[in-house]
């Protein structure tokens, strides 16, 4: 069972659906994060589970274009648009802004060199007409916190000037997508904003 499916099965209620856009530079770990949140194949026994998790992490290749994934939590049903972060595809993000009801923005906190690029992309996003005047929640993952030279989430939020975001709820948490650490916290926050 996936991390968030535990309650869902018991309640069996029809859940509210939320469309989430997962954005961020290439190699920041978007796909890895979503793979962690996704339910895994339920026929597999407990023993195979570890093996599968590893296989999933290994199998991840750079996304081209986008891919749609779904997962449920106790109260919500998420549909995530996992976008490709490579430079040549970033201008395609905007096609999906309109229906995004929440944004997950992933930052590779060990990639100091490209922090400015991440900031630039974030600013472009925030100024986009389809986003600018909407109060949509933004969840930041300062990912790859396990790496030695990773910046703290506080440092990341400073570098990205997150304090300037006034008209939208936002939250940042440090994460390690490979191990699944920190993800729960973020998603809990997202659920709470709704």
């Amino acid at each position, binding site marked *: 069972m996936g991390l968030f499916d535990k309650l869902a099965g018991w309640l069996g209620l029809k859940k509210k659906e939320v469309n989430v856009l997962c954005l961020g530079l290439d190699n920041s770990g978007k796909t890895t994060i979503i793979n962690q949140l996704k339910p895994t194949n339920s026929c597999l026994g407990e023993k195979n589970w570890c093996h599968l998790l590893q296989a999933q992490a290994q199998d991840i290749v750079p996304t081209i*274009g*986008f*891919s*749609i994934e*779904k997962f449920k939590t106790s109260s919500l049903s998420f549909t995530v648009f*996992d976008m490709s972060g490579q430079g040549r*595809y970033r201008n395609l993000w905007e*096609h999906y802004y*309109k*229906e995004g009801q929440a944004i997950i923005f992933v930052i590779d906190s060990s990639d100091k060199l490209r922090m400015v690029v991440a900031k630039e992309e974030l600013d472009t996003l925030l100024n986009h007409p389809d986003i600018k005047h909407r109060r949509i929640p933004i969840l930041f993952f300062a990912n790859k916190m396990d790496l030695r030279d990773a910046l703290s989430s506080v440092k990341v939020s400073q570098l990205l000037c997150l304090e300037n975001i006034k008209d939208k709820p936002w939250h940042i948490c440090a994460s390690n997508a490979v191990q699944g650490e920190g993800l729960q916290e973020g998603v809990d926050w997202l659920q709470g904003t709704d």
Partner: protein
Amino acid sequence: MIKKFDKKDEEAGSGSNPFQHLEKSAVLQEARIFNETPINPRRCLHILTKIIYLLNQGEHFGTTEATEAFFAMTRLFQSNDQTLRRMCYLTIKEMANISEDVIIVTSSLTKDMTGKEDVYRGPAIRALCRITDTTMLQAIERYMKQAIVDKVPSVSSSALVSSLHMVKMSYDVVKRWVNEAQEAASSDNIMVQVGMVLVWLFICPPSCFSFIYPCLYHVMFPMHLQYHALGLLYHLRKNDRLAVTKMLNKFTKSGLKSPFAYCMLIRIASKLLEETEGGHDSPLFDFIESCLRNKHEMVVYEAASAIVHMPNCTARELAPAVSVLQLFCSSPKAALRYAAVRTLNKVAMKHPSAVTACNLDLENLITDSNRSIATLAITTLLKTGSESSVDRLMKQISSFVSEISDEFKVVVVQAISALCQKYPRKHSVMMNFLSNMLRDDGGFEYKRAIVDCIISIIEENPESKETGLAHLCEFIEDCEHTVLATKILHLLGKEGPRTPSPSKYIRFIFNRVVLESEAVRAAAVSALAKFGAQNDDLLPSVLVLMQRCMMDSDDEVRDRATFYMNVLQQKQKALNAAYIFNGLSVSVPGLEKSLHQYTLEPSEKPFDMKTVPLATAPITEQKTEIAPVATSKLPEKPAPSRQDIYQEQLAGIPEFQSLGPLFKSSEPVQLTEAETEYVVRCIKHTFATHMVFQFDCTNTLNDQLLQRVLVQMEPSEAYEVVHHVPAPSLPYNQPGSSYTLVRLPDDDPTAVSCTFSCTMKYLVRDCDPNTGEPDDDGYDDEYVLEDLEVTVADHIQKVLKPNFGAAWEEVGDEFEKEETFALASVRTLEEAVNNIVSFLGMQPCERSDKVPENKNSHVLFLAGMNLPDIYFILKGSE
């Protein structure tokens, strides 16, 4: 809502199309619901159907609106509705070329193709390959390789077929998948599955069939799988004859399960046989022949068809193939009867006697309820039957000719055309039949076939000329096809003036000037001019009509009229011949280029027509049989001839720029045997004072790279080798050209012919046959080629004089020279004519190269042009 709609439609039973009045803008508006959540699969499905329908109706989608719709569609990947997803794949394929950024769905598709939902996997692969370009191919290569060897046959099949499409785009990448394809071709999990399902079929109650059918589907796929794998393997190797041969050997020995794959193998084998000019003792031929005994009818038919289409097939080799086809003629399956009779029909064109054995079976098919089969049977019999049966068969055919489609009417016309050549005495019956057909309704191809047929009858049988022309005149009175009208007008201009009463055609021609479109009017003016030029008593009235044409609203028509008017008023035979009967003999693209050049560098000197290369091989006038109409297209802009292309290529080489216009390019001469290490052929290009020898060389050794390849030539006469342009490098199997420039001897005009001994010299670098990586250093080597002859024909260019008499008179007596030659070694007149034509390389005119049977004297008219600009007209008789 949709359901209701469907139902109503069904009840009405009118078969009316629910999509008939779709409006693009409305549909695109509707497509906005793709953005809504939650997704309504049924509605979205319906809208996608509408979009695809519009696209298939040829509706134009602008890039912006297409892209918008496409991106909206991408959101539908949220839904897990299977039908909707598969409709998305279809939409992706349809829009791949009209929307921007279609690669946005790459990851979604790779996810589906590797996912666990088998019904998605195959179609996702096919869609993915449509949106992938060369730059993206690397990214999906891994998935493709895996998919090709996937154990689910539908996935593997899709991957193979998609790879085949991508060979065109990126041969080098797909080539790396050859091992996977090989594995797919020889995978044997097929048998297990087939066996399993068959057992299931026996032991299951019918209620389980709904379960069995999907399994059967999986059984059918493996059949195609081999076929698809073979197709891919062949396309990856088709440029490498050796590899193809190996592959054929392997599969012909091991055998294949799939009849489709067998058919393909037969096709590959017969192509290879043709290319290598392999004799019929080759193992490939044995293989094809053995397929005549295959248990699948499809394979048997393919083998028979391959054999009958082989060039130089003897009657003995044909016999088994024909008897198989004969058997098929009485098959209860219409498709087989059709295939058999259609193929026999083709055989009958070349080997009528081989088909006579089937006459009885064909007679039975005359009354076949399938009209297509009946038509083919009759037209075959027309070719094989005796002269006496012609009338009966023609009567039979006219009873239903109005019921068959144009395509088959064309077949009938072709049969008539062949018949007229075989039994010239029947031409009046045929002409009658044709003229009736000409009056019937029918499309362009059909009408053109009839017109071509009448024209060829006229050309073959002078006594039918007047009737034929009369029919054609009647036809153009009400003819909607410009091409045919101008063609007939041209013919009238050529033949009309030489008939006993030319005046009767004038009315038909002039009617065109009054009634028709510009192109036809212009052609009519040209035809009129020819009457004026040749018939003195018609001249005054032609001049009056010309005067009227000079007032035409169209520039071209007026220009022509003015031009002809002025020429005709001179009343000089030579002028008429040069400017009215025998028009331009230069190459049109060449003329265009020269004129353009002249306008770029204007000079005091008037433009000189002699600098324009001559038109080559005016084949259209020579041909005797009607080309299969279906394959030929409408005549468009004059395509550059072979020679125009050479002229262009040679002009691109700095050393040859000062040679002047290219006078003539020979046919290629082989200087090596076909199956040698290096294959070399030579094309001789003649210029005013030089010749350029173009050596097209191919290196067939995959472990060698040749560099600095040149051909050294030792002349037997006073020809002087001036310069070599080597081919810089000749990798394995990539042809390259090396040139040798030779100066013609100018003091000795009799030394036209010369023999050159030729040696190819080059630097060899050995290389790894697999990677093609060459060694760092190499060694010099040489290779002796066959001797090359330069002959009289290389110095003479064919010129077609449609009206030979006029051209002959134009030259005048003082230039006439008469000599008698004895041709000792020839036995028949026909042989003599052929020898003279090919020795002199001149153009036979007025169809004088056709020697009538049972005559012992013949006049041959030849026209040619010598270097630099001496016209050369020859009248020979025996």
